[in-house]
């Protein structure tokens, strides 16, 4: 389950290396000519299929959503997974405007483009516009989950070097982890103690020459030492299988919160045998595939025939992992069979998996132009993580709504929570200053559920149509503008503040 609940309170640093202000590493002394390990001319280079990816980005500024954004650039690593198919991290190529691939033995830049991008598991597949230069390269083979304490090497272009770098370490832990790219997804991840540094992102982690993972994140600062994470093979394979049909369909989610069954009274009350099996359902989200099928107080005994333990773990491929791993490996429309105990009675429930959409609001968004509506200097935007961060919203109500968007099912009433984020000062709105960072509840008598509602409601004439009346949630007075004054001021404000378009409501 991809919930924020278990997010460790530690900042992950995504491993993209910013190119700006890049420092050239100190010159490495030339290798001794008689070294036994010296590469001989004509040897096939085992790392030649590992490439450096340079990306130019345009980061949208959610405070000025009508502008393009701030250009920047960065670099990461990619590797050949099939014919002209390079695998890398989503965060290496997110928001990119231009992609360049360079190989270690060829100074020439090759233009590339994104084929598929999966923000929920931080993977992306890109291809070179001209496949020819890579035709002679051999794609890597993908292995399985490496055993604990076995040696692996991470290969990539960290710290901005032009030449490939290899670091060595062992597999330290296999566990569910938050994927920091979206900030809201959790999947299996493998911790290694090989040095993984900015620029390594997207690079392969190899064991016996085969890929066992994709390096993707580590900790910043002094939180932990010698800890790097790689995306393991089950996640890679799932991505590759998902895109086989030409589109990426994302992870499915049960959106069920579980609660361990360890308490003797609880075991008795729920009618369980004291055999260490079964986890209690503590919440079923109204928009999830389990809505109406599972209830609070149900006990999940098994998923697809595998017993679920009292702490919510399940055995998959011999490893004890979070029961959601069963869901993780499935695709949209797949079914999952759950044995449950409800009020002492055993039942079998079949769930048809679907994507759980409300949680996207809470996650970081990429490759998207921010939506907005501007009217008479008032900027309205839908609530999401990018917006909350860009505007540093402190308003307790907005924060409450953001935090409880899923748990209190606020998405049912407001699929898009519309926020008045900014008021560009002008004579027409000078008394409205101070009402920024409020949630828009009603405009001209119309309940606002989406940005589209807002755009339409602003034009709607209520009563004699003399006023535009904006009711804010729990803000104690309506904002009132005389339509004739507001309509006249609107284009002037747009021009004064250089707002090119009055709204962007998404591509339709």
């Amino acid at each position, binding site marked *: 389950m991809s919930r924020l609940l278990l997010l460790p309170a530690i900042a992950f640093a995504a491993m993209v290396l910013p190119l700006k202000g890049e420092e050239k590493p100190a010159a490495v002394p030339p290798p001794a000519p008689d070294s036994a390990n010296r590469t001989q001319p004509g040897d096939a280079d085992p790392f030649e299929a590992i490439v450096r990816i340079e990306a130019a980005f345009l980061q949208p500024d959610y405070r000025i959503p009508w502008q393009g954004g701030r250009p920047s650039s960065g670099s990461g690593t990619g590797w050949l997974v099939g014919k002209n198919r390079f695998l890398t991290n989503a965060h290496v190529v997110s928001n990119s405007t231009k992609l360049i691939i360079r190989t270690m033995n060829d100074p020439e830049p090759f233009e590339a483009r994104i084929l598929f991008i999966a923000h929920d598991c931080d993977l992306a597949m890109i291809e070179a516009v001209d496949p020819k230069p890579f035709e002679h390269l051999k794609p890597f083979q993908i292995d399985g989950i490496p055993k604990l304490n076995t040696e692996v090497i991470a290969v990539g272009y960290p710290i901005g070097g032009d030449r490939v770098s290899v670091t060595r370490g062992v597999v330290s832990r296999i566990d569910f982890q938050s994927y920091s790219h979206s900030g809201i997804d959790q999947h299996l991840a493998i911790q290694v103690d090989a040095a993984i540094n900015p620029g390594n992102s997207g690079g392969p982690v190899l064991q016996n020459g085969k890929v066992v993972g994709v390096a993707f994140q580590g900790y910043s600062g002094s939180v932990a030492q010698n800890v790097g994470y790689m995306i393991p093979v089950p996640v890679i394979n799932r991505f590759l299988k998902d895109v086989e049909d030409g589109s990426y369909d994302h992870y499915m989610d049960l959106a069920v919160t579980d609660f361990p069954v*360890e*308490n*003797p009274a609880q075991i*008795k009350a729920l009618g369980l045998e004291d055999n260490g099996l079964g986890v209690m359902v503590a*919440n079923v989200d109204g928009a999830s595939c389990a809505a109406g099928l599972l209830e609070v107080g149900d006990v999940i005994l098994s998923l697809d025939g595998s017993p679920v333990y009292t702490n919510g773990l399940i055995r998959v491929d011999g490893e004890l992992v979070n029961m959601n791993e069963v869901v993780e490996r499935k695709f949209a429309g797949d079914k999952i069979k759950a044995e449950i105990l409800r009020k002492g009675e055993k039942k079998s429930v079949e769930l048809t998996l679907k994507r759980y959409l409300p949680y996207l609001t809470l996650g970081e968004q990429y490759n998207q132009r921010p939506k907005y509506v501007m009217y008479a200097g008032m900027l309205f935007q839908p609530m999401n993580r990018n917006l909350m961060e860009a505007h540093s919203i402190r308003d307790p109500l907005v924060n409450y709504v953001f935090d409880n968007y899923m748990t209190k099912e606020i998405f049912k009433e407001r699929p898009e929570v519309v926020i008045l984020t900014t008021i560009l000062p002008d004579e027409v709105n000078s*008394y409205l200053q101070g009402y920024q960072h409020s949630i828009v509840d009603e405009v001209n008598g119309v309940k606002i559920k989406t940005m589209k509602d807002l755009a339409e409601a602003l034009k709607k004439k209520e009563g004699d149509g003399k*006023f535009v009346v904006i009711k804010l949630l729990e803000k104690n*007075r309506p904002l009132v503008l005389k339509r004739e004054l507001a309509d006249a001021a609107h284009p002037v404000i747009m021009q004064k503040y250089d707002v090119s378009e009055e709204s962007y409501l998404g591509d339709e």
Partner: protein
Amino acid sequence: MNLFRATLTFTSLSLTLLTGGVCLAQAGPGDMPKPGSAAGGAPAAAEEAPVVSAGGPAPIIEAAGKNTALVKVNVTFQPWNYRIPWQKSSPGARRGLGVLLDGNRILVTGQIVADATYIELEQADTGRKIPAKVKAVDYEANLALLEPATAVKDFFEDLTPLKVDADSRVGDKLQTWQLGRVGDLIVTPMEINKVLTSLYNVEGSMFLVYETIGIIRSEANSFTLPIIRDGKLAGLLLRYDSKNQTATILPGPIIQHFLKDNADGQYQGFPSLGVEFQITLDDQFREYLGLKKDQQGVYVSGVTKGGSAEQIGLKEEDIILEMNGFKVDSRGDYKDPKYGTLNMSHIVRGSSYVGDELKVKVLRGGKEQTLTGKLTRKNPKDFLVAPYLFDRGTNFLVMGGLIFQELSIPFLQSFGNDWETSAPLRLVHVAKHTDDYEKEGKRKIVILAAALPTRSTQGYERVGGAIVSEVNGQPINDLADLDKVFKESKESIHTIKLDDFPKLLYLDAVTAELDNQKLLNGAYRLGLLKRIE
């Protein structure tokens, strides 16, 4: 050399004081005076004391003389812990000055006696001490009356009671009285610049204040400095901003109100209006409301349940035009005959008593009408979520290690100064939106605050901050309900329904009772399994 050492001593004393003040400030609302700017009325902020000793701008001392009306007040206080409700925090000390009034009564601020465990009065010159007790206290108006704990004949005989002056105005010259090391009177002049309404300490305590300019010395007994005009008590120092050298003074009229209310021994407190209003300066908004050019008034945006305004029939969206005969302008101010422009809240809070008539002229649906009724007061105990708790701990109940308590603002404030964002957001939200719960019939919000590790709570370690809705099928509207359900239940397993994660908990009735006994005397030494007052 000696002098220098004395100053140092004072500095450290002031530090103690300040800590006491900060403690209180936490119990107050979020927008209290800046920390360091003499929270709790102690002018001796830690950082400024050295400046005084280093010979900074010398305080103007008008005259040094003999003390005729002041005693030192030493208070030991010990607030309850809101997160560990069966425990108290460690004791602290506050030192201040008390003003002798007739009838051997000593006037101090409410702050100084909050959560007091021991109060003593000290003769400034001789050092003689007697124990004292609180005769009356109002934490909203921040005033308290002390009296000797036992009858003492000669303690006050060298002192003359002060009379209260309620007639100070802008421009009047005042004096701050302080006592030196051996009881010598230190007098500092100041002048009233402004009269306005301002927040005192606890939530909802908007009252009249004087604002003055003048430097106040840092002395040992800095709490409750008396402010004098022509030999009468014109106020008590509420807070001092050392950076801007402005002092906020709790004024004579409020003191007089407090004393008058107390005179019959039945203290009722200050009436409350219970209205939230919005200014109507915005022309477009005024036109929308149908206000004529010459019509002033404010827009009512909220009416507190159980307040005076609700009882006289005031409604949201009304425009208040007049209150008790005073015209209310677009900012919510009226022309006070004594002080000039002042917030209309003073008409109710400062100049009226509970039971007085309230007359409000409103514009409703374009028509003027007059609403009348009696002024009432909503007591803190009638709030669904207590705005403050002093001299008592929070109500709580422990069952098998699960800690239940009634949600209160002090509980939320225990999460820190930025509690509005750092306390559990759901609970903060509930505390500010009590209407729905009151409609449901709840008297208090009972929360499961945390779980102590016991056999009964095995597996419940992560649980906390959840609102309790039902236990064994019975709705829980306050902690007494919960106590009753647990007492009368014949179930062998209690079923606890929560509004939040994990929604459902089970507790073995027998094991829980056994665990209760262990918690009482064992590792956690609770000493008390519940407090329901």
